[in-house]
């Protein structure tokens, strides 16, 4: 029977395949071992450093400086480990503990590095710097974050905007309001969430957005007004529902009014239930259906006979008493 290849060639190929398999197995084994060694080394390091970070986090003022000594002398992997633990904790704590962890990061040199990385040519580094500056209790961080909120990179702008909200500082509000227009390139949901995080300081400022020329600003303002309990929100929302040119703003106003449950808004909602825009009609009727029946009995009875089936369905969502 004729053979396709001479036996010597087949033999060489088999030997080569065997060697390649053995080399692959050895490489995989070595890589797994190396990963395991690295993992256990990191675990030992974390076990050594974590208690020091925890102690510093809850230290009283007079004991804090002593707790920080160990971080000032840290280098390389140990320092990065301490930074990572302290940064992770900062997402969940406020008050004195946040201040103490900021001192830990300062002792590790993290804050100095983050500030210098705000001007890095690499967007990922600028974004990481913004993330850290938003976590710490460090007033000077705000000016860097406001600058990064206008960065050329979309990603950096979004991270800096979120960080401004998380900082919870009144100085951050101007930067957040500047990010509201759609031209900022920062998604409205990011700016809105950031303003909500800083609600304590943003409530009064948010009201100004109702008269902005940019519909994206007016819509975000209408959404936020009920969440942050912006002063004077109800009459502004009623006016937006009745007069805004942009249906998305009117829908947002109707939903905000639904959250606020304001009796004064019933006539405007009833009027909006006959709007030309079906989204506005449904949002207004849905809002009316959630109000106490004593306020809306008549208008809902009327809307239950509306020619639009969606309106009839929305009006019937809540049974009318009596």
């Amino acid at each position, binding site marked *: 029977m004729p053979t396709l290849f001479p036996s010597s060639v087949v033999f060489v190929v088999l030997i080569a395949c065997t060697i390649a398999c053995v080399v692959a197995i050895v490489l995989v084994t070595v890589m797994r071992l190396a990963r395991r060694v690295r993992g256990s080394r990191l675990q030992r390091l974390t076990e050594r450093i974590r208690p020091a970070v925890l102690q510093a986090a809850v230290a009283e003022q007079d004991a804090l400086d002593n707790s920080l000594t160990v971080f000032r002398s840290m280098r390389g992997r140990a320092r990065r480990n301490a930074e990572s633990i302290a940064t992770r904790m900062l997402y969940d*704590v406020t008050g004195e503990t946040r201040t103490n962890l900021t001192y830990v990061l300062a002792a590790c040199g993290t804050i100095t590095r983050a500030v210098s990385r705000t001007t890095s040519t690499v967007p990922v580094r600028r974004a990481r710097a913004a993330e850290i500056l938003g976590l710490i209790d460090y007033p000077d961080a705000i000016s860097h974050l406001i600058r990064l909120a206008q960065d050329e990179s979309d990603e950096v702008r979004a991270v800096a905007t979120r960080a401004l909200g998380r900082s919870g500082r009144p100085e951050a509000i101007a930067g957040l309001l500047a990010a509201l227009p759609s031209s900022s390139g920062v998604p409205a949901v990011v700016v809105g969430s950031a303003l909500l995080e800083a609600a304590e300081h943003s409530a009064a400022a948010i009201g100004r957005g109702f008269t902005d020329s940019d519909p994206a600003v007016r819509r975000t303002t209408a959404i936020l007004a009920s969440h942050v309990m912006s002063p004077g929100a109800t009459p502004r929302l009623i006016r937006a529902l009745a007069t805004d040119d942009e249906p998305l703003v009117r829908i947002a106003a109707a939903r905000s009014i639904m959250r606020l449950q304001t009796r004064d808004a019933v006539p405007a909602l009833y009027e909006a239930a006959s709007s030309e825009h079906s989204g506005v009609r449904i949002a207004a009727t849905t809002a009316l259906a959630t109000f106490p029946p004593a306020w809306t009995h008549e208008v809902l009875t009327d809307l239950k006979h509306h020619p639009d089936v969606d309106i009839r369905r929305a009006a019937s969502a809540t049974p009318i008493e009596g």
Partner: protein
Amino acid sequence: MPGKRILVVDDEADIRDLIALKLGSAGYDVQVALDGNSGLQQALTGNFDGIVLDVMMPGMSGIDVLSALRQAEVTTPVLLLTAKAQERDVEAGFAVGADDYVTKPFSPRALLARVNALLTRG
């Protein structure tokens, strides 16, 4: 409140140990549980004066643990720890018998003050 026994139940090691350290520094005898199941077991058998209970945990949530405790007629004061975005959990928590709550991000000092108040009332 030296000597009072507190159970801290949280699956996040950093937060659990931070709370344990803060309460321990105030003189409390603190025990920790790593998840809802072991938290429930310890709470049923440990005779604690107060429990700090995280709501969001894999497996058995804080609400499940609290509900099981109240069904077993354990009346130990419970403080819920919940994320700001999950404040609806607070309603569910009070409905099943929580005594107080703290939202994350939180101040460990404020949490200590609330635990002190809870145990004084309890």
